[in-house]
């Protein structure tokens, strides 16, 4: 089995470099994108094993891309780690409020990490969500 692929979608260059380094130096193959549009394209092209997605990006933001990912048959099984500056509680509250309208409901992401992320947290959470996903596939 080849290296596992991680797609990082974040508008901030520093954040992309940091997270890329974290995963590259831990044996992953890393792709990165600056916004949701580029992120979707790269996800469709490469079919990554994990997506790390910044929620608060200018323009459409991460939620739009998240919705699209979860709406595509080929991509919806890819585990996603959501990243943002808001606290975990606030994020889940936000998600709950969004999900009041059932037709627009979006499933909870596999994991959520508050910015700025710690390297160990990223790796630990990534390992656990990808592990879970592999188990489900088997």
């Amino acid at each position, binding site marked *: 089995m080849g290296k596992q692929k991680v797609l990082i979608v974040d508008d901030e260059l520093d954040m992309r470099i*940091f997270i890329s380094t974290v995963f590259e130096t831990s044996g992953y193959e890393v792709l990165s994108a600056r916004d949701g549009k580029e992120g979707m394209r790269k996800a469709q092209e490469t079919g990554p094993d994990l997506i790390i997605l910044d929620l608060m990006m200018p323009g459409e933001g991460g939620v739009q891309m998240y919705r699209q990912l979860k709406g595509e048959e080929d991509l919806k099984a890819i585990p996603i780690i959501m990243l943002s500056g808001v606290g975990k509680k606030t994020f889940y509250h936000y998600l709950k409020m969004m999900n009041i309208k059932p037709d627009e409901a979006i499933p909870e992401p596999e994991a959520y990490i508050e910015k700025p992320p710690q390297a160990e947290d990223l790796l630990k959470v990534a390992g656990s969500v990808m592990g879970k996903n592999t188990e489900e596939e088997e």
Partner: protein
Amino acid sequence: MDDRRILLVDDEEDIRDILGIVLTDIGYEVLTAEDGEQALQLFREFTPPIVLTDIKMPGMDGIDLLRTLKSEAPDTEVIMITGHGDLDLAIKSLKYEATDFVTKPINDDILEIALQRAEERITMKQQLRMYTENLERLVEEKTRRLVEAERMAAVGQTAAGLAHAIKNISGGLAGGMFVLDKGIELDDDAYVQKGWKMVKGNVNKINNVALELLNFAKETSPNYRHCDPNGPAREIYDLMLPQAQEYGVRFVLDLDKDLPHVWLDPESIHRALLNLVTNALYACTDIRCTHKKTEIALVTRRPEGWAVEYQVRDTGCGMDEETRQKVFRNFFTTKGYDGTGLGLMVTKKIIDAHSGVIEVESEKGKGTAFYIRIPQRNGIQ
């Protein structure tokens, strides 16, 4: 009351004598005049608080005198002496704010009552003035406290925003250190370079935050100088041109060469323009609008009624209505990680201190224009 002077005006000598004695008896220092003209002369010279005047006199009569006195010194108490059949004149005099009137032949008791009323009114007016002054002082003091409280609230807001900015930067520093560490650990030069660049970038950011915060906290009373308003614009052009070229953004300087010298604080204006041009550059290099040719124009003009107008226009990504309304707020930023949200706020503060105006026009996808107008002022401020 202390001032016991009274001006007595009557054309009849007898009445002047008798009333003079009565008034002196009560305790007044009496000045006398035989007609309106003389009365006015004496009044202007000595300004007695009370005037007692006959209503019917040859030449300037009592009513004319009353009106003149009231227009020159509204606080003067004027008591009218009227004949028996002069009721209409008496009423007319009250209309012109006479304190009271006494009828001839004069009853000493009635006169004394009228005088007492006059004095009470004087005392009341004095007290009222004192109260008013106290009240004004009180209002002033309360206002000062309120302003202080508002400033403290702004400081609280500032601290919260600052905490957020610092958290971002410390996150960036930690990330940079991590990448740098990996570079050293793995002996990988690319990581060392990238990590070091992140560290430097974030140190730079924290420097900017500190500088902008200092500028914000400073009570900015502009350091006015009589200077060429094109000066700061030229400085900014020279300073920012290399960066614009590096990013592939056209930067145009369009100065009105005939601008006369004006009074402004060139250093503050330099900072304000730097903030605007930096923003314009950011808007032009934003990843969401790289599809078109971008240009920044820095323009000086002299519109009617103003000393100078600076324009900073860009053809960058522009703002929507919602963003445009928030641009001058504390810690509002669209730059995410890159912005402190202080730049435009400081800019506005500088322009406010110059009693100038700053306006913004923007259209999403088209670009943004900021206008700064500085009013005329003379050197003595």
